């Protein structure tokens, strides 16, 4: 494994009885990269992350985390990693500070407590209350603080902004970006496509336990279908537009406007439109969410 690779899995297989959660998962995350991991519920996102921390043992394949084998050296992997579980549970009878001090003690009391207070303040997290009295969002903030507090080389975050309000979601994304600026690698799963699109340099789409796509968000978006809404100065016959390669007419009214779907490059459509009296032209850029849903819908059709 290259020094430049933070995470690597090859042919990872994990079954729970008859249910195959991972069916030969291949993944590679570069050091210093923010990597988004997308997939519907049950696709294998959490299973992958838990294999990386040796909480569960795969039946096949290999994993390397920061050039270490998690099964052979789990303590070293966890010492370098900050983990936020998807379903965060902390001892409900501890105070926030008590819980964080306990996690610090498990890390050998190496954490800079000033940094802990700083991150907690940025997330507007009070350290005094007892965990059981916290809202879901505040519990999530405790999880975010404990994952970041020892300035890990690798962040494994399972739905890091779950339950947070939009302001706090943005703050968590900032913290992840800052961790990256300080040399950390961030690997995070999410259902919120806008946040993946905002911070991830590359994304992987996992479907039924295998990675079906790895690309930069912009590449995925550019490769996807786009919609173009064209308005004309006077009614025209739009049928020649349907003959342009990659263009499909979705709807048209009395000939003064048309809604088109364009696959791939826009060049052919733009050239074809040169022959028309165009008064307005708008394109809709698909969100990563639509692209993700397209993958998922394909999957459902296959089933």
């Amino acid at each position, binding site marked *: 494994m290259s020094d430049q690779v933070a995470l690597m899995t090859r042919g990872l297989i994990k079954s*729970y*009885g*008859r249910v195959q959660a991972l069916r030969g998962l291949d993944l590679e995350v570069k050091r210093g990269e923010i990597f988004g991991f997308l997939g519907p519920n049950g696709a294998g996102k*959490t299973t992958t992350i*838990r294999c990386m*921390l040796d*909480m*569960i*043992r795969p039946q096949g394949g290999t994993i390397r985390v920061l050039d270490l084998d998690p099964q052979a050296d*789990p*303590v*070293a992997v*966890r*010492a370098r*990693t900050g*983990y936020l*579980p*998807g*379903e*965060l*549970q*902390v*001892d409900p009878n501890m105070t926030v500070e008590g819980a964080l001090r*306990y*996690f610090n*003690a*498990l*890390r*050998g009391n190496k954490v800079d407590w000033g940094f802990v207070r700083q991150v907690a303040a940025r997330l507007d997290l009070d350290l005094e209350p007892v965990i059981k009295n916290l809202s879901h969002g505040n519990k999530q903030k405790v*999880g975010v603080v*404990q994952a970041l507090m020892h300035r890990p080389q690798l962040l494994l975050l399972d739905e890091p902004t779950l339950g947070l309000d939009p302001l706090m979601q943005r703050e968590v994304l900032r913290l992840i970006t800052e961790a990256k600026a300080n040399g950390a690698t961030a690997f995070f799963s999410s259902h919120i496509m806008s946040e993946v699109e905002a911070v991830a340099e590359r994304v992987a789409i996992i479907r039924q336990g295998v990675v079906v796509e790895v690309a930069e968000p912009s590449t995925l978006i550019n490769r996807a279908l786009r919609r173009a809404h064209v308005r004309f100065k006077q009614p025209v016959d739009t049928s020649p537009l349907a003959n342009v390669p990659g263009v499909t007419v979705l709807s048209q009214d009395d000939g003064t406007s048309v809604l088109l779907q364009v696959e791939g490059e826009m060049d052919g459509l733009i050239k074809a439109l040169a022959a028309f009296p165009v008064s307005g032209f708008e394109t809709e850029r698909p969100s990563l969410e639509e692209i993700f849903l397209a993958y998922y819908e394909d999957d459902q059709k296959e089933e």
Partner: protein
Amino acid sequence: MMTVFRYTLRRFRGQILGWGIALALLVVLIVSMYDMIAAEQEQFAELMEIYPAEISAFMGDISTFGTPEGWVSIEFFSYMPLILGIFGVLMGSGLLVSNEENGTLDLIMAHPVSRTALFMGRLLAFVTATVAILVITWLGFIVSMTWSSMDIGWGRIWLPLLSLLAELLLFGTISLFLSMLLPSRRLAATTTGLLLVASFFITGLAKLNEDLEAVAKLSPLNYYQAQDAFHALNGVWLAGLLGSAVVFAALAWWRFQRRDIRVGGEGSWRLPSLARLIRRA
């Protein structure tokens, strides 16, 4: 490991104090009543003669009712493995799995703590908590004997307590081992609890029915020493119980090293559902 130990022991504080103080108060009551029993020994001896043999089988030699050792054995030590055994079974079954079922183990395991260190830290806390409860109970004896005519001796009181400790550790570790094997803490605790109750009855009934003696030899409570410990503690039996506890702890550790950590909730046998089988048929 010591961080895990300290944290776990702190979590057990309430149980240590609850069980310890309750048992110490029970001991104070029993020891305080002894003076009355000693003063009326002849009447009690007559009463004991008409007691059925079954009582002796479960509570010990009731002819020794009037002696300090006999009194505390019958009134306290005879049934203590059953009562305090519940503590051992619940503690053992929940030592790791309670955190697994409430989902908190996931985050603990994400920290640089090996499975062995986590297991050993928790096990050590369980042993310490059990010893602490027995120490508080012992203090109950010591304090109450200062105003009672009962004089067993501070050190001698420890002899049946040692045997009780060995039983508690054995049932605790059996429960811990089963919690590593079975899909839920509840099932592990229920199974070990049934084993404890069955062991209590088989051991008692074997004193009435010779046919059960062979089975009773397999019963852990057959090797528990209450009244007998005051006279001569059987070191082989004590070592046997402690050794068995070590074996079950080792088996539990071995299993914990190899199993997956659940995210939360109870596990399952992953057997095909009855509804699915009916549908297929």
